[in-house]
Structures are given as C-alpha cells and as structure tokens.
C-alpha cells in the first residue's frame, strides 16, 4: 500500500521544515516501520530513537497529529487507507535535539528526584518479604511504566511550569509509596508535597489519555494526594483546598465558595485578593454567606462521612478499591462496558470521518 506522512525536520540551528514522504509499504507496517523505510530508502539523515520495536523499551515516543504515541504501537493501515497524511513531530515539553529526537535529561532528572528504587530504612529483614497479591495489585498499573515520556510530552501543567515533577515521576513515586517493602513512605510523601509536587497537577488527564501502557498517572497522583492527607501531610494550599471540599460536602452539602479563599489561602491572602473578590461579588459570583445555602437532607451526607471514616479505606486504598470496576469497564467486561477495540481504544489512528451532509442552519 501507499503510505504518506509529513515529518517536522529540524537541525541543531533550530531551523524547522515540514517534509512530506510517500512510499510503498506492506499492510502490516507500524509508524516505526515507515520511519525505518524513509531512513533506509529516502533520507538517511532522519533522526529518531528506537530499540525493541515491541512496546517495552520506551524509546520511540513521538507525536502523530499532535498526540504523543509510541511509533512501534501505531499501525498505519487505517490511516493510509483513509488517505489522511499524518504529521509526525517530536514530543512536547522536552528540548528537541534533531528531528524526532528530544533531550531526555530533564525527564531523567525528575525520575531520579523521586528515588525510583526501594528504600529499606529499618534493620535488614531476616528473611524475604512475603507480600500478598492484593497488596501488589495496588501498584500494578504504576509498575507498568516504561519511561517513554508520552505523558510528560502532553502535560498541561508542565507547559506552564516546567519545574513540575510531572506525571511520569509522580506515577513512579506512587509505585514505591504503595510498595509494602519500602521503608520510606512518609519521607517520600513529605518530599512529594513540595512546590512542584503532587498539588501542581492541573487534572487535564492528558497523561492518562496518552499513556501507551495504561499507567494512568493522574490516578497515581490522586493516590499520592489521598495518602498524604491520610498521613497528616496537608500544609499545601492544594491539600487545604481539597480538605475544605470534604467539610463543605458534609456540613452544607454544596461547596461554600465564599469561604474557599480564606480556607485555602489564609486570611492575609484573602485580604490581598479583596479587590478581585469585590469584582466577582458585583456579578453575583460570591453568594452571601448568610443564610448559608444548605442542601436538603444534608444530615445523610454527614452520617455517611462518619460511617466511612470507620471502615479503614483512608488514603490510596479508597482509590484502589474502585480500580477493579473501572478496569472491567475499560476492558469491556460486564454490563455497559465499552468495546476495547471500538472507537476511543488504543492504538487510535486517525481515520478521516465521512463527510457529513450539510446541516440546515437556522433560518
């Protein structure tokens, strides 16, 4: 079949050019195979990383039509058949070295910063650790990471704040925080609650959407937040903000927005923000605190809080318990489950939609 693609080429001088390539390829090719063909037959100067060709080494992360993919996981058949010419570019949030190769140093620096190895702080154990399957299941997803950088490429918070630890390092951190053999859980959480840690995540879910291995970094970050709060590490504004939602839900039912700024940021900051708040108040964005707006039957919500507090699922255990149902849904098991091979599943090549009939616009 004929396969065409456009590649953003760039050199050391920072000059960029979008070049189009078209060649014959077998129907089974992946994006990586096509790049190999381009390099072999058309232009030997094309630069990209690769190694295993089977989704385990994490080398060939790049962007197709603006979305990070593993080139070796992306089949070209549907794309070629639709006539679409995809644009291939290097990953985002990392400096470009040449063509599709990015400098991974900032990535590895953050990876190293979370101590990605077991820390046994106590006396040496006398025998091997014996751990139940259930305990390991809690960090199963986080253990799947192959360090490809697809999540980091797309992280919206890192675009705005490049120092943010980011989804890969935080997911890796959760892999050790949740490991019963690790002896430094509390110290790890303390370190992860810094300026550019857990609470800088903006919940855009790009990491979870793009991860080619199902690591679900956003979920891992939520687990770190929940575990921090359960262990009393709640000095960050983000943690205070999250805790205030709990107070609101069990006392008035609805979020008491008037109190959100003083509760999250403290009284001094709320005075500094007074002019901004006044502008919001003018437009009814700040409802008056009295009488408080209280949801009907809110006592049920308070009682539920008391009840579940006694049931031992504080911290990340509260998130892990829901993963089974979510995964069954995502993998197409059970009622209402989606088709894992249907629209929205991975790999997700672009297929040009059928042209829609002209819709009658409003008269």
């Amino acid at each position, binding site marked *: 079949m004929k396969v065409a693609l456009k590649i953003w080429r760039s050199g050391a001088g920072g000059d960029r050019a979008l070049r189009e390539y078209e060649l014959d390829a077998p129907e089974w090719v992946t994006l990586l195979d096509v790049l190999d063909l381009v390099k072999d037959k058309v232009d030997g100067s094309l630069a990209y990383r690769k190694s295993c060709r089977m989704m385990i080494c994490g080398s060939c992360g790049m962007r197709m039509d603006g979305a990070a993919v593993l080139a070796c996981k992306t089949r070209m058949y549907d794309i070629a058949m639709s006539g679409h010419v995809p644009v291939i570019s290097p990953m985002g949030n990392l400096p470009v070295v040449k063509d599709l190769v990015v400098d991974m140093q900032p990535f590895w620096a953050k990876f190293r910063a979370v101590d990605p190895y077991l820390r046994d702080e106590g006396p040496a154990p006398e025998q091997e650790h014996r751990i139940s399957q259930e305990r390991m299941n809690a960090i199963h997803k986080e253990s799947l990471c192959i360090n490809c950088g697809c999540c980091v490429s797309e992280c919206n918070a890192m675009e705005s704040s490049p120092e943010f630890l980011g989804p890969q390092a935080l997911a890796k951190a959760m892999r050790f925080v949740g490991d019963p053999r690790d002896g430094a859980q509390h110290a790890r959480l303390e370190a992860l609650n810094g300026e550019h840690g857990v609470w800088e*995540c903006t919940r855009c879910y790009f990491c979870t959407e793009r991860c080619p291995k199902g690591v679900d970094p956003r979920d891992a970050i939520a687990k770190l937040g929940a575990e921090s709060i359960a262990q009393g590490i709640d000095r960050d504004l983000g943690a205070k903000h999250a805790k205030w939602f709990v107070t609101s839900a069990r006392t008035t039912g609805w979020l008491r927005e008037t109190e959100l700024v003083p509760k999250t940021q403290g009284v001094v900051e709320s005075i500094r923000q007074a002019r901004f708040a006044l502008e919001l108040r003018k437009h009814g964005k700040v409802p008056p605190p009295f009488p408080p707006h209280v949801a009907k039957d809110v006592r*049920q919500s308070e009682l539920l809080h008391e009840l579940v507090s006694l049931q031992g699922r504080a911290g990340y255990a509260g998130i892990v318990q829901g993963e089974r149902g*979510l995964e069954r849904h995502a993998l197409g098991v059970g009622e209402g489950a989606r088709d894992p091979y249907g629209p929205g599943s991975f790999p*997700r090549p672009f297929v040009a939609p059928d042209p829609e009939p002209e819709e009658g616009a409003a008269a």
Partner: protein
Amino acid sequence: MKTVAYYKGCLASLSAKELDTSTQALAPKVGLDLVELESVTCCGAGDIHEAEPDYYLHLNARILAWASDTGADTLLTVCNVCTLNLRQANWQLLNDAELRDRVNRNLEAVGVPPYERDVDVRHLLWEVSEGDGWERLKVAAHKGLKGLRVAPFYGCQILRPSKVLGFEDPDRPSSLERIIQACGGEAVDYPAKLKCCGFPIIQAREETALGELVQPIEQAKDAGADVMVTPCPLCHLSLDAWQSKLKAATGRDYGLPVLHLSQLIGVAAGLPDSELQFRRHVVPVEPALEKLRFEA
C-alpha cells in the same frame, strides 16, 4: 419529551445561577423534562476524590441513588467535573458487585435508598448534539447566531479520560462545533480548545494556572472570535472571572465574553434576558451580541 434527573452541581446552584436558569428555560425546547434532585450534595469536584476517596465514592453513589429513585434512566449534568466524577463512580459501582453491595449497605444505614436500578450520567452537551435533542435543537435555534464567530472550548473533563467519558473522540471532538453551526454561528478553530483552563489549581498555583488560561483566551481572540462557549461552569469561572488577571501579566485586555452552552443555544432560541442573565458575567457579553441585533 425525555424525563431526566437534573443534577445542578455547586456552581449552577450558587455562583453560576445563570447556568441553571438558562438550562431550565432551554430544556423543554430541546425535549428534556427536568426532575430536579434536591437531596444531593457536591460531587467532590475531584478534590474529595483526592482527599477522602472512599467518601467521594459514597457521596456520588448517593447522588446516583437519588437519581435512580426518580425513575429516570438518565442523570443530566451541566458541568464537566460533575460528569467525570459521577461517571467514574458509576462505572466503579456498576462493574463491581461487591463494592456496590458495601456502598449500598452504607447508604441504607443513613436513610438513602440503595442504588439498584442503573442510571446513565450524561452531560447536556451530549443530549443536544445527537438524537432527538439534536433534531429539536435545530428547530429551537430559530433566531440563529448569524455572523457570530464562536470559539468552542471543551474543557478537559468532558473528553478525558475517554475510558470514563467516551462520548466522542477526545482528540477530534465535534459536538460543540456542530451545535454552533446548527445555531447559525461560525465555529472558530484554535489549538487550545482541548486544553486545560487551569481552574483546578487556580487557588493553589495561580501562576501555573494563568499560564494555561492565557492560551485559549489569546488564541481564540487572535482567531477572530466574538465570544467563547464552554460546557463547563468551572472553565467558565476561570475563563470569565480570572480573565482580568491576564491583563496584569500580558498587558493585553482581551475582553472575550464567555458563554455557557445553554446560554449560547438560548440566544439562538430567543430566550429572554431574565433567563440568560448576562449581567452575572464579569466580561460584558452584550457588546458582542449587538452584532446579532444589527444584522437581524
């Protein structure tokens, strides 16, 4: 008419009442009969999920249970964050009988009916961009938005994670564009329409959040948008109310009015000002809509 259990959420109940009034006024025109849920609370907005996740699950199960109790098959939301939180809890419960049993026992212990009959959680955007709602929308939007250039802003949590949301391709969504066109407006395209508005960290990390917020506002403005539309009241709060803070950072006064989805359709459907309530917006909306009056 389709009867749905209507879950307003915090914003439409308090600081974004204009979202509630315009949704209530629009509903009958697009074939929706709203049964408003009263004995419900905040969904936790992702924050309770990150603070006390077990409580998050129970709060959302309680909302689902009361929705199921109305007899409706659909729980209608008007907020991305509510949609994600409720759908996530729903999939967790529907696909894990053991978990659902435990949650139901807790619900019954505090006087909430157990969540037994399944409901589907759907956003207003989905109801009016396909099926019967879509057919009715095309008729209802008779006044049109001729000549109005509208920038669609999806917001994250109606697209991602797609395994929980799953309504449309998270990288190439088209529901907002189709609605804008059906209302007679012109959809403006720009790259940041799928990105984050910064709202979840706008208090804890304001600088990082504003660095995100500036992208859609600036790109939409540069692409010639008269107004922006979003299906999420949290994005709305960030895009509308925090827009003034961008001026200090960039020196540019964008003045881009941001409409809730129900307001945009509401304008095309001729809803009165008393239901649209544009006076509740921080960036004035009227000047942009003047364009429609002159061309009408």
